[in-house]
């Protein structure tokens, strides 16, 4: 009897553990907070109708907005945002964001770039002022590229990369 009781204790312990796991992992899981500014969407709808929304119309619009946002979060939670056009778009947005930090070149930097590349213009180089715009674009592009490369190198240190390539 005592052995049976002891075995029952173990069973109870395991059952209690499983119940706690379910409670903590499923029921008490923190909910992700979504903050949605509804003002702009309401304003757009009211402008389209040319009048204020009724209470029912407003409630329906808010329901729709919340539903869309939940779907977006669910798509991310399910990993549907990886690959394809979404990945490209996200990477492009990140590059644009990083390039915002590129400062404008000053006169001395542009002049130095011009002088360092005189050979590209052949025997009769154009006046500096004629190529100033192109040099500014080149300078910014080079700096932007360097900023993006540096950021990517920094970020890559946080990742473990697995490449399955059978090539020699």
């Amino acid at each position, binding site marked *: 009897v005592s*052995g049976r009781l*002891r075995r029952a*204790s*173990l069973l109870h*312990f*395991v059952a209690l553990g499983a119940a706690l796991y379910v409670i903590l992992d499923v029921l008490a899981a923190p*909910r*992700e*907070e*979504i*903050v*949605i*500014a*509804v*003002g*702009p969407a309401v304003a757009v709808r009211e402008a389209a109708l040319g009048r204020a929304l009724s209470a029912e119309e407003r409630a329906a619009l*808010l329901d729709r907005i*919340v*539903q*869309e946002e*939940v*779907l*977006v*979060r*669910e*798509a*991310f*939670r*399910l*990993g*549907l*945002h*990886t690959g*394809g*056009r*979404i*990945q*490209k*778009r*996200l*990477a492009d*947005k*990140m*590059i644009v*964001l990083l390039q915002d930090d590129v400062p404008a070149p000053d006169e001395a930097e542009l002049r130095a770039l011009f002088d360092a590349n005189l050979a590209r213009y052949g025997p009769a180089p154009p006046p500096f002022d004629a190529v100033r715009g192109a040099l500014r674009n080149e300078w910014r592009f080079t700096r932007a590229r360097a900023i*993006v490369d540096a*950021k*990517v190198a920094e*970020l*890559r240190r946080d*990742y*473990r*990369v*697995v*490449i*399955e*390539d*059978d*090539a*020699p």
Partner: protein
Amino acid sequence: VTATTQPDAMNDAPPRAMRNRLWRDPLLGFLALTVVLFALDAAVPRDDGRTIVIDRATVAAMVERNAYLLGRPPTPVERAALIDAAVDHIVLAREATALGLYAGDPQIRGELFERLARRFAADVAEPTEAEIAAYYAARRDQFGGRTLDRVRGFIRTDLWLKRREARLAGVAAAARDRYAVVLTEAAP
């Protein structure tokens, strides 16, 4: 023979009893269960968001696309550069996701809804001819005298999209409890 085996048998008796007691001890069962749980936990691959896998299919697709553009297979150096660029792309995309750059982007949202629809509403049935006819009969005035044959395509698409929307609304309703939604008038 008897003289040599008897002492061994006597020496074996106490450890065997101990072993039996040990096997029956719930603590041992608990420890064994814990070890099994830890082993299972360690064996289950977890996506911590910090691993990037470029699988064979992805490499093959990149190489094929590049070969088409170059008119020849990429060299080993070019191949390595392709893979490296793909990793950079993923890293940038993940950082953009972490910064929430997807919020409010209509292209990304539209593509996400399409992917959700492909996942959860791929089996939405086409409307039947009776349903199309009923839709037409109920809205005949809105079609400005056009015959059913002329608006059949529009009605079919509209009914199908509504079904797909309803399916996605169900997905959202099922997921709603995972989120605490706060509505504000102005941008946060």
